[in-house]
């Protein structure tokens, strides 16, 4: 079991209280009507599946029911950082690799 820090409750809680809600920082196209089917399809259905650093949206489902972001290493399960929605991650994947 993980202990996950909830940035709203300001303490570590059991993983059991949380749910993962998929990839975070997905920008909605500003003008959906102008999108091609391909662009819209990619926005709707296609998600990154990186090996290594991944930014995910999580929800403290059994606690304060707030969404927040977790930067996680998908290979080691290590949680690098927790930050609120609207904030920028300070840990990002090294694109050069």
């Amino acid at each position, binding site marked *: *079991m993980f202990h996950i820090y909830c940035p*709203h*409750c*300001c*303490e570590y*809680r*059991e993983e*059991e*209280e949380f749910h993962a809600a998929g990839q975070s920082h997905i920008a909605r196209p500003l003008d959906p009507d102008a999108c091609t089917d391909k662009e819209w399809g990619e926005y709707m259905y296609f998600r990154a599946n990186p090996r290594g650093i991944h930014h995910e949206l999580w929800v403290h489902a*059994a*606690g*304060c*029911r*707030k969404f927040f972001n977790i930067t996680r290493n998908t290979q080691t399960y290590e949680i690098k950082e927790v930050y609120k929605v609207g904030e920028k991650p300070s840990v990002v994947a090294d694109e050069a690799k």
Partner: protein
Amino acid sequence: MSDVTVEAMEGKLVTDQLPTGAIVGESPLHHSDLASIAKKGPQQGGVHFHERKLKGLLTLRCAPSAEQLAVIESLLGVALPMQPLTSVTTDAISVRWMSPDEWLIIVAGEQAFEIETQFQEKLTGHYALVNISGGTTILDVSGSHVVDMLKKSTPVDLHASEFPVGKVVSTVFAKSGATICRLADDKFELVVRRSFADYLWLWIQDASREYGLVVKA
């Protein structure tokens, strides 16, 4: 675009939800006849159980401005606990922090409507106050082995250094959920869903078996 137009309603709709007249209010554990068990059952044991029934519970959702905070304090008689996981408890009213923009207000059953009406009259701006009395019930558990019983039910750290008196957490409880508040060293309040009340009552009986369960009327 929908063809349906919804006309804005004047004011807010507040209904007195207390049963009156021939209708008798029944708590979610009415069928368990706790009063008889309290009389006939064991009088000594490590866990004490009491259903604090038919209370008035209100959910306040608001990102309060300083002005709203002042109005809320004057209406409730206590200030909203703004720090995460804190609560305010007096004889007349309890306020629990639920989330950064949500509080649970617990008053006597007959006071809920009065508070709702006052909020509607006095509090302006963006907020929501919802009466959830019918959907929840409060279980008070206490006794020398209450922490041992709770440890079987929830992953939250209940040690006094981590969970002092007055702290309130919403968490998983016996595969269901509960809002747990520590009222004293060996006394906890569980706010649970009405539909889970019977299941949790059975669970608490089972979890308390080795310590002895005393039901208080």
